[in-house]
């Protein structure tokens, strides 16, 4: 995990190392400052000449200035290193998601990916900063301070033999106990926030059923549960302060008592007053270093959860990869399924598609009909290799789809997904997803075929009208037509419409299909629809039922022999047509 994240440091290795150097420098100076101040105190005490005092003083001030420069510079480079590291992590995670196949995407919910890219990265950034700021500094301070204390204080340093183990053991126990408690409570906290989100989204349902009181009670129970857990965890951590305080006080009392005995008995020869104040300072430094180390420990373990979630994405390998010597040219729009079966995951018991044998010639129009859950979408998603067939093979242009370069294959196979999305930006921007170099004339041409030109022109800004996030400012039917136009801009060899005209009226639907016939006769068109009217003039209609081909043929043939087809047809025509 650490190795994987360490790869994200990259160009920020330099500021990281610079930070470490500055911090080492700052730490060393900070160690020496009490030593020199002790001298200064002694000089003053001994009534040394003003000149001597001034020299020591200036020396000390210069050290402090250097330390200030180092510390300030370290602060900047450390911020740069950690913010840069976070930037790279975000970049890597985002790019990784871009390589995901549909199978990979299904595994992570989009909201969990958003959390990973925001909160989790921020957590990791904070702990990276903590690590480079204190992970080197604290041990150095600890070791140097102990050495200096020993040199200066001799016997007096004995206090640390008592204090350091107490603090170390105390802090260790606290972090050991607090960590699992925190991890548990953070998980609960996430769930609480999820339930708030759920509630906000479902407010109409909550109010519609007058469930405000019920929701309030549920929430206060969950909040109380979290409060208890949080309090427990925080109270464990709160013990840090008294333990620390105890050690500081013990150190003070010990140094004063033993120190004064040593001075008086030794007549100031072994130790002097200046050294006592230095010993107190070193004591503080040692204890603070220990405290910082324990804090790092806690922060790292808390952010380990975030790191783990990030690494889950980073180590997720796309299950679809380009073959070596990939074929880059799709010859034509012919499609063949040879004994294809498919299930979404190895663990799944049921095959979503079974025993599919199918031959579609280039340029044909094929309709697919079937109920909810009959795997219509699954079938067509195998063609641009959005998923790989579990068994059997899928051929496009006479070649197994696995032998193509994914990019070229998908350039030749355009698909209008059922759950379709327009992105924030102008209408023209959105359409250019199909072909980023498309001219306005080309855009207009496909929009005319998709019956979108007219309404786009009716907008005040025409093709420059803005689409809001989620495409909320165009109607369902308009959105579908724009999505069809977007797919057509790719000039594909195969065009797949997955229930893409469901919100379009029958007349417009018919016009779109007529347009296909006139303008892209060479292109193989596959149309999934609920409405018989949308497919009845296809060259071939496939009736899917429960992942199997129940029947296929032309409209007339199917009316003759397929019960399912006839049933749907009659249901839709009994009261006239199914108009939307």
């Amino acid at each position, binding site marked *: 995990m650490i190795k994987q994240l360490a790869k994200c440091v990259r160009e920020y290795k330099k500021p990281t190392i610079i930070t470490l150097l500055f911090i080492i420098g*700052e730490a060393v100076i900070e160690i020496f*400052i009490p030593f020199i101040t002790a001298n200064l*105190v002694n000089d*003053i*005490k001994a009534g040394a000449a*003003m000149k001597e*005092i001034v020299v020591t*003083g200036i020396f000390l*001030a210069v050290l*402090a200035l250097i330390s200030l420069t180092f*510390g*300030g510079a370290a602060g900047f480079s450390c*911020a*740069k290193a950690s*913010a840069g590291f*976070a*930037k790279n992590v*975000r*970049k890597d995670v*985002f790019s990784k998601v*871009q*390589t995901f*196949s*549909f199978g990979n*995407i299904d595994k992570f*919910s989009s909201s969990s990916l958003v959390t990973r890219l*925001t909160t989790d990265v921020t957590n990791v950034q904070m702990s990276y*900063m903590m690590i480079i700021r204190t992970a080197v500094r604290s041990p150095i301070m600890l070791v140097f301070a102990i050495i200096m204390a020993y040199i200066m204080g001799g016997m007096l340093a004995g206090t640390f033999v008592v204090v350091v183990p107490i603090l170390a053991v105390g802090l260790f126990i606290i972090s050991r106990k607090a960590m699992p408690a925190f991890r548990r409570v953070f998980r609960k906290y996430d769930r609480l926030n999820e339930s708030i989100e*759920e*509630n906000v*989204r479902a407010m*109409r*349902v*909550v*109010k*519609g*059923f*007058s469930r*405000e009181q019920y929701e*309030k009670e549920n929430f206060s129970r969950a*909040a109380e549960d979290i*409060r208890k857990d949080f309090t427990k965890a*925080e109270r464990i951590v709160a013990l840090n302060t008294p333990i620390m305080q105890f050690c500081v006080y013990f150190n003070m009392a010990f140094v004063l008592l033993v120190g*004064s*005995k040593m001075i*008086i*008995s030794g007549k100031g020869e072994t130790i002097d007053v200046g050294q006592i*104040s230095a010993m107190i300072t070193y004591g503080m430094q040692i204890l603070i270093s220990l405290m910082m180390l324990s804090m790092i420990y806690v922060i790292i373990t808390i952010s380990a959860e975030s790191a783990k979630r990030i690494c889950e994405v980073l180590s997720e390998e796309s299950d679809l990869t380009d073959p070596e010597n990939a074929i880059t040219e799709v010859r034509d729009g012919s499609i063949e399924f040879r004994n294809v079966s498919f299930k979404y995951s190895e663990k799944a018991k049921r095959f979503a598609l079974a025993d599919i044998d199918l031959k579609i010639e280039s340029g044909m129009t094929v309709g697919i009909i079937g*109920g909810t859950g009959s795997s219509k979408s699954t079938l067509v998603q195998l063609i641009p290799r959005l998923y790989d067939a579990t068994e059997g093979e899928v051929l496009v242009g006479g070649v197994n789809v696995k032998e193509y370069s994914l*990019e070229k294959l*998908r350039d030749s196979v355009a698909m209008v997904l059922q759950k*379709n*999305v327009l992105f924030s930006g102008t209408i023209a921007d959105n359409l250019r997803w*199909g072909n980023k170099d498309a001219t306005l004339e080309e855009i207009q041409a496909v929009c005319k075929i998709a019956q979108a030109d007219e309404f786009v022109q009716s907008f005040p800004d025409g093709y420059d009208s803005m689409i809001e996030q989620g495409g909320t400012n165009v109607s369902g039917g308009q959105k579908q037509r724009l999505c069809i136009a977007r797919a057509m801009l790719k000039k594909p060899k195969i065009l797949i419409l997955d229930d893409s005209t469901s*919100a379009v009226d029958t*007349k417009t639907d018919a016009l779109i299909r007529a347009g296909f016939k006139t303008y892209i006769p060479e292109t193989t068109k596959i149309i999934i629809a609920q409405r018989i009217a949308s497919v009845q003039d296809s060259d071939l209609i496939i009736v899917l039922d429960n992942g199997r081909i129940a029947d296929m043929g032309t409209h007339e043939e199917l009316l003759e022999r397929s019960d399912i087809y006839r049933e749907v047809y009659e249901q839709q025509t009994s*009261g*006239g047509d*199914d*108009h939307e």
Partner: protein
Amino acid sequence: MSKLEMRPQVSFASLKRTVKMLFKFYPVLVPVTILCTLFSAVASSIPAIFVQNVITIIEKWYESGDWDAASKEIIPKITLLITFYVLSIIAITVQTQLMAYMTQGFLSKMRCAMFDGMQDLPIRYFDTHKHGDIMSYYTNDIDTLRQLISQALPSLIQSGAIVLCVFAIMLYYSLWMTLVVILGIFLMMFVSKKIGGGSAKFFIRQQASIGKEEGYVQEIMNGQKVVKVFNHEAECTEDFDKINEALFEDSYRAHAYANALGPIIMNIGNILYVVIAMAGGIFMLSNIKNISISGLPLSIAIIVPFLNMTKQFTGNINQLSQQINAVVMAMAGANRIFSLMDEQPEADDGYVTLVNVKTDKNGELVETSQHTKNWAWKHPHTADGSVTYTPLRGDVEMNEVDFAYEEGKDVLHDVSVYARPGQKVAFVGATGAGKTTITNLINRFYDIADGKIRYDGININKIKKQDLRRSLGLVLQETNLFTGTVMDNIRYGRLDATDEECIEAAKLAGADDFITRLPEGYNTPLSNNGSNFSQGQRQLIAIARAAVADPPVMILDEATSSIDTRTEAIVQKGMDKLMEGRTVFVIAHRLSTVMNSDVIMVLDHGRIIERGSHDQLIAAKGTYYQLYTGAFELE
């Protein structure tokens, strides 16, 4: 992204209010904690006096080297010191434990207050605020309060108290030296304000950048499959890089200033130390008369503790400066939280309630606490103090209703609809024609501007909202299900429904078939708003949820839009049974769904342009006829 729009307001008023609330929640514990904090602060500044005392004694006995004699003076001092220490440790233990307890308690209370307040807000609030923004009240903003209460406030009190104590002790020893310290402090405060303020500014910018990034990521992750189908990965990565780079810049600046502040303050402290040492030396050598509370002359026994105090002083000033960020961020966070809590709750002046009734021997309706299947509107009349009971029948009337979401932009004009008990009324029309608005008005998600809506002859403004809504079953196109099992979700319609009743409702809705085929049947958990179910299956569950509530009036707003026609035909039988004896309002795109309604209203730009049964409308050869023959498109 919206987060850019929410300009964080920094105000002291919100800080004051937060502190006030803390006092209100814990009127005893807060003062106790403050006392403990002050005590431990004082206790930690006292040692300076002891150190000075001990050094004086050392100096006295230094020449003689007689420890036994000296110890008689030293040991009592140190014993006293230890006593102080012990008390201080007790105080600090109490303080930190109470702090942990109160912080979490306070946050929990705030969360509940926010949530409770939110539940009472009108639908308009949720329609006009982005969900992501509402969520950030509960996550980011609450987090700034945690920082404020658990760290910033105690640290402000403690460090502030120590600074004051030390200051008093300094004055006790020497005015001249104290003046030098004050000079240094001014410098530190100036630097803190400059650097700390800059850091806070960038932290707030960083928040905005994170919001922007979150918005972009959300959009792309939601449309990831479209990205793949169009080979658009490289372009997205490029766009993301730009946003990511901007975030990096803000984050870098914010942390750089925050990081640099500590070492800068501490080293100014070190320099101050030198200045104090030299000033002390000069004062001592030049025999300037010391001015102090103690009246002691300037000596090494004063300079040494003075130096230690300087350290303590700077350490605490540093502590204070580190909290500037937390305080500024908390002020912005608290401001936003209070803005949510101060939102006007949904007004409800209704006084007509829904009660269980039975018929007494005189054939009159009387209220009962039993669970009869009979409901009635209880209508108290203020004029004569009498109470009338009107049986719940499901008769809905709209008379010349006008409505606008925003002033001046009328969505409905002069709409009149009469739905008799058991009738099925359908609304047909383009997106934005006002179909959903009508249903929003019937259950008073929004209140009408002009006209009247009556339920069983009672003006709905007089009916308590909760009771009104209880009498209306609602199934929406966007099905929102909750985390929990399928059974839990159906039972949401009526909390005291038995398992059998839930299953019965599911059967009615035509959902039983697929639910029983699930691996865990009715106990199958739903995750992520039911993303493990298809849209059609979710709609079926939502219909079952409304069915179990068994209301006399149902509103089906595109309730079957995602169910394929074949399944719908199957569901239809159940639906017909479900609708039997109920007043039903149906909104649908699919004409096949509404054809068998008693009345069909064709809406256009907020006006009813045609009304009648299917056959009547076809015969009239108007807009409905055109829709029906496919000559017209609904958008």
